[in-house]
């Protein structure tokens, strides 16, 4: 918790970081309360006063962002879509960093055979093509939000593990580690009490980048038609628009979900980069 507070304070001190945090906050509120704010049921087909389906109508006072081919309200779909983006992205980022952090710590600290074996395993996972692997898993074992999180975590921890390991390799030789060892601290105590706190900043940067990647990937999965069929996500809105073959007559259907993804992911990137500047001041622009 203290770590998180100092993280937020550090990012807040950088102008671009502050704006990004505010944007992220707005999206978080939408993710939490979106379904209550949404003016319509996103799956309901809306009919006009004359009893005709309101299909592909442009933005209006009633339907802020227009309607889909099936007469569904796009603004409501967009508001519902914020939650899966956060849920899938957040869970994947946390899972990714937990696995990557531990593997990186253990491989880097113990070295030798442990390191060699763990790094070989990491290499094998690095060879897995990211999106195709997730798609194959989803195609074979069913399309649910949990399978998506699981498959994404499996292919994402590898980069975090490598980054953390490299950092641990240099920390291991630091005087404070030797000092801890002379006091008789065990390997595990040194690893988790002395070294882990020092790689946490790096782990937080990794979490931000993992979150950004996970949100984009979730959208891509949705767009390819492999998303959870019971969940409305920004990717699935774009899939519907693309599959309808009439998206070219309805830019209001295509543009908003992409903007939402772009703004949210940019915010996450800027937060990660702002924090990177804090832990590595050389990156600061003069």
């Amino acid at each position, binding site marked *: 918790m203290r770590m998180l507070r100092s993280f937020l304070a550090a990012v807040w001190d950088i102008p671009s970081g502050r704006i990004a945090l505010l944007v992220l906050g707005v999206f978080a509120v939408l993710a939490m309360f979106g379904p209550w704010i949404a003016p319509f049921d996103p799956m309901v087909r809306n009919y006009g006063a004359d009893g005709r389906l309101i299909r592909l109508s442009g933005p209006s006072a009633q339907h802020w962002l227009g309607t889909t081919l099936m007469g569904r309200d796009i603004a409501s779909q967009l508001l519902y879509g914020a939650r899966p983006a956060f849920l899938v992205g957040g869970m994947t980022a946390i899972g990714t960093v937990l696995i990557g952090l531990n593997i990186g710590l253990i491989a880097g600290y113990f070295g030798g055979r442990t390191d060699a074996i763990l790094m070989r395993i990491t290499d094998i996972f690095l060879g897995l093509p990211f999106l195709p692997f997730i798609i194959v898993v989803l195609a074979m074992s069913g399309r649910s939000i949990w399978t998506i999180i699981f498959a994404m975590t499996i292919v994402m921890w590898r980069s975090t593990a490598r980054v953390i390991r490299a950092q641990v390799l240099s920390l291991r030789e630091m005087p404070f580690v030797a000092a801890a060892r002379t006091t008789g601290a065990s390997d595990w105590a040194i690893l988790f009490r002395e070294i882990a706190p020092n790689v946490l900043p790096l782990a937080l940067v990794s979490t931000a980048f993992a979150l950004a990647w996970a949100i984009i990937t979730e959208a891509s999965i949705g767009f390819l038609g492999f998303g959870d069929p019971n969940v409305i996500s920004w990717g699935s809105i774009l899939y519907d628009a693309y599959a309808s073959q009439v998206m070219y007559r309805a830019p209001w259907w295509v543009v908003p979900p992409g903007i939402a993804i772009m703004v949210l992911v*940019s915010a996450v990137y800027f937060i990660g980069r702002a924090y990177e500047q804090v832990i590595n001041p050389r990156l600061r622009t003069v």
Partner: protein
Amino acid sequence: MGRYILRRFFHMAITLFAMITLMFFLFRLLPGDPTATVISPALDAEAREAMRARFGLDRPLIEQYLVYLVNLAQFDFGLSFRTSRPVWEQIELRLVNTLLLILPSMIAAYMIGAFGGALLAWYRGGRVEGNVVLAATALQSAPVFWLGMLAILVFSIWLNWFPTGHIVTPGRFPDPSWRMYLTLDFLHHLALPFFVNTLYNLCFPLLLMRSTMLSTIGEDYVELARMKGLRESRVLYRHAMRNSLLPLATTMPMILGWSVAGSVVIETVFSWPGLGLLMIEGITRSDYPVVQAAFLLIAVLTILGTFVADLLYGLLDPRIVYR
């Protein structure tokens, strides 16, 4: 050095072997019967058995695995469930199509990214720099398929400059062959996906080059080069930029591998008949041998990318010690 390459090569072989094994069992063990769609339940039991035997599915799993390995070593990916003909026939041109789209656009993205990033760092602190960084981050954050959809909307539908998809005008080459790459029609179809993919992929090298350059510019040797009275452009290109190329060069093959893997989406948007689209089509048709082969080739390209990255890293940075 020779030993280093040999060791890396050995690692790559292990990774490849593990990948093949993993995929083989993943395809057999995940829920869902790959034979369900190809072998019609309407067939009587005897015909069904004959069909299973034809694809070798009646043998024990281990035997199937060994046969698969032996076949793979001879570039035999088995028979397609849909066409009952060798999978390789479908793969060959698809592989070329993917590479023709991805490789040139990655090279372009890296060239533009490297020079753009270097110039951004050189003239840092201005309004241009801030705006370009913001734009590059935004582009990088946008899903590439969405950029593709917007490009089709603007350049194909509204302006009518480019076709909306496919590799050549449909029907022009009923029998796809090498000749189609030599037509202007092909280039016309390539333009839009190439443009979108380049634009999307140049953000990463651009931002990376900028941040590497920012720290290089502070180094003593850059200062020294300036004090010697060298021209600005010479200091920029010969001293600062050259020394900032390392992270860019080492990440390139890995990014290339990711890009091949990510081509699934760009190929889907532009109906570009590459490996990624083949894989998706295979899944919708439950043609698992095709899916497996396409996936494997994408994985091989990814692994090759990482292998070259490791070698380059050793070659470019003399500080790396080979063990």
